[in-house]
């Protein structure tokens, strides 16, 4: 027995000393040009690093790193150039002509020509399941450095599409491209252990400024695992959530990035009716006064303080701080006015304190994606705040497969925010087939008209004005004074624990998605 104890003891000692040895070795090897970053598990591109299947140009837009894009978005979200040297659009807005650089090579040594560009876009048009390329008729390479995009309808914000589509090589593209991508971008994908990590190495032949970070390792893990990894000192940047933001540990500090990653509720703007077995519309929220009262009756600052630990900014639209944002959307928290609006509109409190009008009870069932604890907390807080206005609210966690149909009749806690005004169109513009907007019943001809005009516009700057007018033109729109079919609550800051000494380059406002945006400019990061 004694012997066994001794053996056990020495085994423990050995393990501890070995572990200690490991730690001291890694600490001694000061890595000056490598960085390890964690990301949510959902950020791992299921279909690989292929732009046609959502890499970069997917639901969460970001720079594709491995591939080059024609244009880029600058930190102020204006358009800059990457491969393109110049672009222009025809009078009718249907043909975009882009000149590209002639000195760019793919990492396999082949030159990148206009043919590859045309191939990439035609391929996206045919295969993209996540992004809409239906406006593209055909992309044609007229010579080695010129490509023409023929559109079937005017699309003034095409440069924003060009900023997220990575150019793939025609000669090295097959159905397995996503697993072994070849590009011309700042990094080469060296290794991909599915479900665990991706390792990028700097492209030695990159045509632009040489990346200062030579090796980037991305680990996919949940927030609690990321926190543990940071606490044990194994990662340099760990993504985290507001509920962990009060954790403090040596060698790391909290880094927060302002975002347009907003959370908001849709309020169905049509009375309830049944269509194909699905309830569409809501009798309570179809009254515009109800929607206006809710919009000013919600204390966004309290919400940010309580739910986000202060790491957020109030949201008044889906595109706060973007060049196409109309600041007429800003409202003041005014609970008395909210109650007054409801009273004046005939929503009187019943015996149980819940308002009623013509037999319709002021009830809402706020849906939220069950997997998202922040949205759950926001839904709970909204519920508490609505109760004070005399509205009976309940909450329900749902899966995404039921969330979309549920949102047609009840508010859902959404998350949006992208580097393109197209999002306004997707949310507020009516669909031809149904005559109402896609995600929540709403229709306004004036709003539609401005957005159509904005897309038709040949000048990007000019189109911003039209996007703004679609939000509020002085008489009609989607703001407090207008139809207010969506209530925007807050923009959630993206939070990271960053190892001391790592200098993260200036971030552009992050869009929705707590994943790849942080490494958009990883090539410019540095160690001090």
């Amino acid at each position, binding site marked *: 027995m004694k012997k066994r104890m001794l053996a056990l003891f020495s085994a423990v000692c050995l393990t501890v000393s070995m572990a200690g040895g490991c730690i001291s070795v890694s600490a001694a090897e000061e890595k000056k040009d490598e960085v390890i970053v964690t990301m949510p598990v959902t950020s791992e591109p299921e279909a690989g690093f292929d732009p046609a299947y959502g890499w970069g140009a997917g639901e969460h837009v970001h720079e594709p790193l491995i591939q080059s894009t024609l244009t880029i978005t600058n930190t102020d979200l204006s358009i800059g150039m990457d491969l393109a040297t110049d672009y222009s659009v025809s009078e009718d807005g249907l043909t975009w002509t882009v000149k590209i650089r002639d000195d760019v090579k793919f990492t396999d040594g082949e030159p990148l020509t206009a043919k590859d560009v045309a191939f990439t876009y035609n391929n996206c048009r045919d295969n993209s399941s996540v992004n809409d390329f239906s406006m593209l008729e055909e992309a044609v390479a007229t010579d080695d450095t010129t490509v023409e995009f023929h559109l079937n309808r005017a699309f003034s914000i095409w440069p924003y599409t060009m900023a997220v589509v990575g150019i793939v090589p025609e000669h090295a593209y097959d159905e397995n491209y996503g697993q072994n991508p070849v590009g011309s971008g700042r990094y080469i994908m060296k290794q991909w252990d599915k479900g665990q990590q991706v390792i990028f190495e700097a492209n030695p032949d990159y045509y632009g400024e040489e990346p200062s970070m030579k090796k980037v390792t991305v680990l996919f893990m949940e927030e609690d695992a990321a926190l543990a990894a940071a606490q044990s000192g194994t990662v340099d940047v760990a993504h985290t959530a507001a509920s962990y933001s009060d954790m403090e540990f040596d060698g790391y500090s909290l880094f927060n990035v302002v975002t347009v990653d907003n959370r908001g509720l849709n309020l169905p703007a049509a009375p309830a009716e049944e269509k194909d077995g699905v309830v569409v519309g809501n009798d309570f929220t179809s009254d515009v006064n109800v929607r206006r009262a809710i919009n000013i009756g919600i204390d966004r600052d309290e919400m940010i303080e309580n739910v986000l630990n202060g790491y957020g900014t109030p949201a008044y639209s889906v595109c706060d701080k973007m060049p196409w944002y109309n600041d007429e959307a800003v409202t003041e928290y005014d609970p008395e006015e909210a109650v007054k609006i409801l009273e004046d509109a005939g929503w009187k409190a019943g015996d149980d304190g819940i308002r009623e009008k013509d037999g319709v009870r002021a009830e809402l069932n706020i849906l939220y994606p069950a997997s998202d604890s922040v949205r759950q907390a926001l839904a*709970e807080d909204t519920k508490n705040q609505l109760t004070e206005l005399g509205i009976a609210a309940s*909450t329900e966690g749902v899966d995404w497969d039921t969330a979309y149909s549920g949102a047609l009749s009840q508010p859902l806690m959404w998350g949006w925010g992208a580097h393109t005004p197209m999002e306004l169109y997707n949310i507020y513009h009516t669909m031809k087939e149904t005559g109402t907007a896609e995600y929540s019943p709403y229709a306004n001809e004036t709003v539609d008209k401005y957005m159509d005009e904005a897309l038709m516009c040949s000048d990007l700057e000019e189109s911003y004005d039209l996007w703004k007018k679609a939000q509020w033109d002085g008489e009609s729109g989607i703001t407090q004074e207008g139809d207010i079919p969506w209530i925007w609550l807050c923009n959630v800051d993206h939070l990271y624990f960053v190892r001391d000494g790592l200098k993260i380059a200036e971030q552009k406002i992050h869009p929705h998605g707590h994943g790849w945006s942080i490494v958009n400019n990883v090539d410019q990061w540095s160690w001090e």
Partner: protein
Amino acid sequence: MKAFAKKQKTGLTLKKSGWNQRQRLLFWLIAAVLFLMAVCIGGMFLDEAAKTTDFSRKNIAPCLAYPFGTDWLGRNMFARTIRGLSISIVIGISAAAVSAVLAFILGVVSATMGKAADTMVTWFIDLVMGIPHMLLLILVCVACGRGLKGVILGVALTHWTSLARLIRGEVLQLKEQQYIKMARKLGKSNLYIAMKHMAPHLFPQFVVGLILLFPHAILHESGITFLGFGLSNEQPAIGIILSEAMKYMITGKWWLALFPGLMLVLTVVCFYAIGENLRKLVDPASAHK
């Protein structure tokens, strides 16, 4: 050696408490039943409190006002735990009841309706038992649309097999008994024999089997909910509480998992104690120890 130790121990407690084993069994039985009833009744009154969020009191460690602490939404964990357990117990009881009835019918059918029926039922039992329990449970639950209905159906449709086997075996044995054969020779109907002669023998087995199904059902309910296939997460179910607690373990909020976990174990142990004690009390062989 073991028997001796046991004897000695019993003698000791006998001397100390002045209770015989039967009385002690009864005591524990009543204590367990009272505990479970308290949880159930408490849960009924705490429904509102379990769902109330109040951000002014979030992440409070256990104290007098909140004996189990509060979570990141400022929900009272004591209320949530009790409410969660009462939901679990209700699910357990309904699922176990359905399961037991199913087991009884199939067991009796298998033993009395002839060879073909027997083959069918045993084949079916093997089929259900052959698929890993949790997997089948998830399949049934998801197919039935999750939520309360899905979980009850899932648990009910997966837990009947062992009890059905037991009852089948018991009935087969009874059929060979002299007095049953005699009753048959005397021309009594099948129904009469089943009701008058077989049911009294099966009843204790059945009740004990039924009660011993509860802990299984409760653990599986919380298991499937923990994995995200069961109840929706605005409900204060015990599986939800535990899976949420997992996320905050790393921040040192131990009370989120510890107390609900302990209470779950306690509940399961109580049901087990009830089942075991009841068996000892009603089983003729051990009733007079």
